[in-house]
């Protein structure tokens, strides 16, 4: 498995993602500057967290139209594994690779804390090693993570089982008090129709080793390793 981590001006979780892919998972991993036209033959593309272009215009709007995104779109459209974390999720939405919108947190606060996520589907390369109802403890750090979708889209995402993670209590209850940002239906992540593109606000790459407070994020990377070994992507 070869991973590429795209770096935009203002990315700040790029090294966390590089570290997890390279040191924790042992994958061949390359950083890719946003002005590049090539993903260097990567099987997995990660758009990391941060504040690309200082969140100017809208979070992810300018990065979503940067030169590397042509290659990211081509990779995603041919079924290549693509993962956007936090700002990366915002970028994937702005680039049109994932539906919906991420609005200002309803509490108007920047939220930097641990959250719990309930796994809602194992039917994707990102979640295939997880069980329905598993609870993951991961950190969030964002001001604009309030997932919004029109009623029709929300219905479609539910009907097509494209919501892999919802914010929940420690014991797995998907309840309003577990929702840190006002996201519709506690949505913490969404998949594209092809199930090969995932966007999520929480940071699995920052919680992939016990020394960091949680190693639950590693289970997502292990799913990817398993998916790659089996399907070859």
């Amino acid at each position: 498995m070869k991973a590429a981590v795209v770096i935009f001006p203002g990315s700040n979780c790029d090294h966390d993602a590089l570290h997890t892919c390279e040191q924790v998972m042992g994958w061949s991993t390359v950083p890719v500057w946003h002005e590049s036209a090539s993903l260097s033959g990567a099987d997995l593309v990660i758009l990391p967290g941060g504040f690309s272009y200082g969140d100017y215009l809208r979070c992810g709007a300018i990065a979503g139209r940067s030169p590397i995104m042509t290659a990211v779109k081509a990779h995603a459209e041919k079924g290549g594994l693509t993962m956007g974390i936090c700002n990366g999720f915002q970028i994937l939405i702005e680039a049109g690779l994932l539906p919906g919108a991420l609005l200002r947190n309803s509490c108007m606060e920047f939220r930097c804390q641990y959250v719990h996520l309930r796994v809602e589907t194992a039917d994707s390369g990102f979640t295939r090693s997880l069980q329905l109802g598993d609870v993951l403890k991961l950190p969030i750090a964002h001001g604009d993570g309030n997932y919004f979708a029109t009623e029709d889209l929300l219905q479609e995402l539910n009907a097509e089982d494209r919501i892999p993670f919802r914010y929940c209590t420690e014991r797995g209850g998907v309840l309003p008090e577990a929702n840190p940002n006002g996201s519709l239906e506690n949505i913490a992540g969404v998949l594209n129709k092809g199930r090969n593109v995932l966007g999520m606000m929480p940071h699995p790459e920052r919680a992939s080793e016990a020394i960091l407070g949680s190693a639950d994020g590693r289970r997502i990377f292990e799913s990817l390793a398993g998916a790659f070994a089996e399907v070859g992507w």
Partner: protein
Amino acid sequence: MQFACEIIISPRRDILDPEGDAIGRSLGRLHFEGASDVRVGKYMTLQLEADSAEQARERITEMCRQLLVNPITEDYELSVRSL
């Protein structure tokens, strides 16, 4: 011809605007009774070389479509004035 263009971008009516709500509550605390429905958007200006006002308007509409506005969450209004 040179045109001065203004774009007012506002959150769509069906979208929650927590910033507008917070400002509205603050106005209430200052006893500005009767102030309601505060919405916060963006105001942009740009100058554009075009053959006519109509062409300028078309090009800005395209800019809005491709970059400046997120149609899921935002509405916009344009004005174009020749310089």
